[in-house]
C-alpha cells in the first residue's frame, strides 16, 4: 500500500462529503433561517416546498460525514464529538425540530401552525450556528491527551466561535436566498433578491473579520499565510471576484448566477480553511495521518464508496431534475 496514500484519498472523500453537506443542507437550512422574513403563509408554503422533496437527502451527507469520519479518521470523531458535546446536542435538537416541521407544519391545525413555523426557523438557526461554531473550534484547536479530549464542556464556546457561528448563519442565509431566487417568482423572489444583496456584504465582512481575527489570535496560522503569501493571495482575490460576480448577478436580476456565485464563495472559504489548517486534523497536535484508521479499514470502505457514491450523485441529480423549475403557490405537498 506504499504506492497509494489511502489517507490522502480519504481526505479528499471526507472533504468532498463535508462540502456536499455544507452546500446542500446549507441552502435548506438557509431557507429556514429566512422563514420570518416571509410576509404570509403562502410565501412560507412555497419556501418550505422548494426544499421539502430534497432536504432529507441533503441531510444524509451529515450522517455520511459522521460515519465516514468514524471509518477513516476515528480520532477526529472521538475528539470533536466529546469536545463539542453541548454544541452537538444543540445542533441535533435544532435539526430534529426543523426536520419534523416539514411534515408537521402541513398537518397541524391552522392555529397551531405558527409553532411549527417557529420550530422550522429556530431549529435551522441553532443548527447553522452550532455548525459555524464547529469551524471556529477547529481553528481554535483542542486540548488532547493521548487520543482523548481532556478539556471542559464549554471550551468550544468563545467570542471567536460565536463569531464563526453567526458567520455561517449569514452564509447559509445567503445560500438560502439565492436558492429562493432560483426556485420562486413574484414578491417572494423580489424579497429574496433584497435579502441576498444585504447578505453578500455581511458574508464578505465576516470573511474579512474572521481572517483578521485568526491572524491576530493564532500566530501560527498567520505565519503559514505569510510563508506562502505568493500562492495564498489568490484566495482572498478570488473570493472578492466571486463576491463581485454575485453582486452583479443580483443587480441584473439573474436567476441562476447568484446561487452559483455563492457556491463559489463557499468553496473558496472552505479550501482556504483546509489549506490554512493543513495537515492538522485535530489541531494543534494530530495530523490527518495520526487520526487515520487502519489501512485495511480505509481500503475496505474506499472500495465500496468509490463504487456507490457516483450512483448516489446520479440519482440525487435525477430527483433535483424531477423537481426542477419554479415552485408555485399551492403545489407541492403530497
Amino acid at each position, binding site marked *: 500500500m506504499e504506492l497509494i496514500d489511502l489517507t490522502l484519498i480519504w481526505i479528499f472523500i471526507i472533504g468532498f462529503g463535508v462540502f456536499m453537506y455544507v452546500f446542500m443542507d446549507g441552502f435548506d437550512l438557509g431557507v429556514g433561517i429566512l422563514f420570518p422574513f416571509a410576509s404570509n*403563509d*403562502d410565501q*412560507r*408554503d412555497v419556501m418550505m416546498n422548494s426544499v*421539502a422533496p*430534497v432536504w*432529507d*437527502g441533503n*441531510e*444524509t451527507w451529515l450522517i*455520511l460525514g*459522521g*460515519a*465516514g*469520519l*468514524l*471509518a*477513516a479518521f*476515528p480520532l477526529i*470523531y*472521538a475528539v470533536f*464529538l*466529546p469536545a463539542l*458535546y*453541548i454544541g*452537538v*446536542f444543540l445542533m*441535533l*435538537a435544532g*435539526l*430534529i*425540530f426543523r*426536520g*419534523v416541521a*416539514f*411534515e*408537521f407544519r*402541513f*398537518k*397541524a391545525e*391552522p392555529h397551531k*401552525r405558527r409553532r411549527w413555523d417557529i420550530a422550522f426557523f429556530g431549529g435551522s438557526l441553532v443548527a447553522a450556528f452550532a455548525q459555524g461554531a464547529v469551524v471556529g473550534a477547529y481553528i481554535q484547536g483542542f486540548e488532547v491527551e493521548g487520543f*482523548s479530549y481532556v478539556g471542559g*464542556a464549554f471550551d468550544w464556546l468563545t467570542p471567536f466561535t460565536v463569531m464563526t457561528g453567526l458567520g455561517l448563519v449569514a452564509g447559509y442565509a445567503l445560500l438560502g436566498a439565492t436558492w429562493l431566487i432560483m426556485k420562486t417568482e413574484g414578491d417572494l423572489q423580489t424579497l429574496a433578491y433584497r435579502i441576498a444583496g444585504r447578505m453578500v456584504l455581511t458574508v464578505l465582512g465576516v470573511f474579512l473579520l474572521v481572517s483578521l481575527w485568526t491572524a491576530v489570535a493564532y500566530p501560527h496560522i498567520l505565519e503559514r499565510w505569510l510563508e506562502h503569501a505568493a500562492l495564498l493571495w489568490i484566495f482572498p482575490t478570488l473570493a472578492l471576484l466571486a463576491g463581485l460576480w454575485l453582486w452583479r448577478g443580483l443587480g441584473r436580476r439573474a436567476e441562476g448566477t447568484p446561487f452559483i456565485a455563492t457556491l463559489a464563495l463557499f468553496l473558496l472559504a472552505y479550501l482556504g480553511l483546509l489549506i490554512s489548517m493543513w495537515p492538522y486534523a485535530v489541531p494543534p497536535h494530530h495530523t490527518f495521518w495520526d487520526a487515520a*484508521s487502519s489501512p485495511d*479499514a480505509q481500503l*475496505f*470502505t474506499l472500495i*465500496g464508496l468509490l463504487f*456507490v457514491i457516483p450512483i*448516489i450523485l446520479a*440519482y*440525487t441529480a435525477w*430527483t433535483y431534475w*424531477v*423537481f426542477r423549475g419554479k415552485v408555485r403557490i*399551492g403545489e*407541492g*405537498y*403530497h
Partner: protein
Amino acid sequence: MMELDPLLLSRIQFAFVVSFHAIFPVFTIGLASYIALLEGLLYRTGNPAYEQLSRFWTKVFAVVFGMGVVSGIVMSFQFGTNWSVFSYASANFLGPILAYEVVTAFFLEAVFLGVLLFGRDKVPRGTHLFAACMVALGTFISSFWILSANSWMQTPAGAELRDGIVYLTSWSEAIFNPSFFPRFFHVALASFLTGGFVVAGVSAWYLLKGKAPEASKKALQMCLIMLAIAAPAQLLVGDMHGLNTFKHQPAKVAAMEGVWETTDGAPLLLFAIPSQTQERNFLEIGIPNMASLILTHEWNGTIPGLKEWAPEDRPHMPTVFWSFRIMVAIGLLMIIIALWGAWLTWRDRLVESKRFLRLTSLMIPLPFVAVLAGWFVTEVGRQPWLAYGLIRTADGLTPSLTGAMALFTLVGYVVVYAVVFIAGISFLIRIIRQGPDQADLSEDQPGAHAKRPLSAADDKTMA
C-alpha cells in the same frame, strides 16, 4: 448531594434515544414493503382501491419516517459524544459498517422518499413504483448493516484486540458473525409483524366504523394472510435465535430463563421475581424440565446458572427475565390472532366478527412493546460488555464527560423527544381518524389549496 454518574446517565441516555429511534424503523421497514406492494398492485391492476390505500399509508409513512430520520441522526453521533473510547477502539470495524449503511441504504431511502411523497404527479407510474421499491429496499439494506454491527457487538468475530484497538482479521467473519443470521431474520420478521399488525389494526377499526369498507377489507385480508405465515415463523426463528444465544452468550440465557444455579433438567419459569443481590428467585412457577428440553433438546440437559459468572460479569437478571417474558407472551398472542384471522378470512366471516375486529385494533401498540422488550433482552443481556468479552461498558465511556453534561443532554433529549412524539402521535391519530376516504388532510386549511382537483374528485367518487 448525590454524585451524578456519567456512566449510568450515558447508559440511560443511549437506552432512551435508541429505544425511541427503534420503534420508527421497525414500523417503516414493514410499511415500506407494504406500500411498494400496493404500488405494484396498482400498476398491474389499475384498481383505484390500491391507490387509495397507498396514498393513505404513504401519508402515515411520511410522519413516521420523518421521526425516524431525525432520531436516527442523533444515533450517528451518540457513539462519539458519550462512548468515544469505545468508538475509537472499535472504529476499524464499526466505522466501515456504518459508512456502508449510509451510502447503500440511507441515501437510497432519503432521496427516493422525496419522489415517493412529492412525485406522484411528476413522474410516470412505473417510476413512482420504482421509487417505492427503492425506499423499501433501502430499509432492508439498512437493517442488514446495523444488525451486522449490533451482532458483532454481541458475538465479536474476525477481529483481534491490540493495544486496546480492534483490528480486523477477516471481514466476512466479522460481518457474518455467529449471531448475525438468526438476529437478522428475527428482526426482519418482527418488522413485518409490526407493520402488519398496525395496518391490520387500523383496517379492522375502519371496518367497525364502516369507513372505506372495500379497501379496508382488502387491506385486512392481505395483512392476515401475511401474519398467519410470519407470526408462527417468528416462533421458529426466535427459537433458533435463542439456541444461538445459548451457544455464544450463555450468561444472557441464564438471565432469560431465571437460572441461578447450574441445573440439569431446568424448568421453564412462567413467573418468578429474581433478586440480583440475593442471587435467587421468589415465587417461582414453572413447567418442569421444559427450559432444558427447549435449549438442549434433552429432558435432563444442563443449563449453566448465572452464578457461574462473577457478580461483576453478570447482566441484570430481573430486566432480562421479564423483558423476555413480555416479548414471548405478545408473540404467542400474535400467533393466535393471526391464525384466527386467517381462518375467518378463509370462511369469509371477517367483516361479521366484531369481536375479532375489536381485538385486532387493540393489538396496534403491542408489536412495538414486543420489539422494545426483545431489544432489552439482547442489549441488557450483553452487559457488562459493549463488545462481548472484548470491551467493557465502563471502559468505553468518554473520559471528559461529566455527570452534569450527561444529565443536561439526557433531560434535553427527553424533552425534545416528548414534544416530537406527542405531536407526531396526535398527527397520526388525526390522519387515521380521517381515513383513506379523505383526499388530502391539508385541503381544508387556509394557506393550503387543493392541488389536484381531478384526483381529489376521483377519491370522492371512489368513496
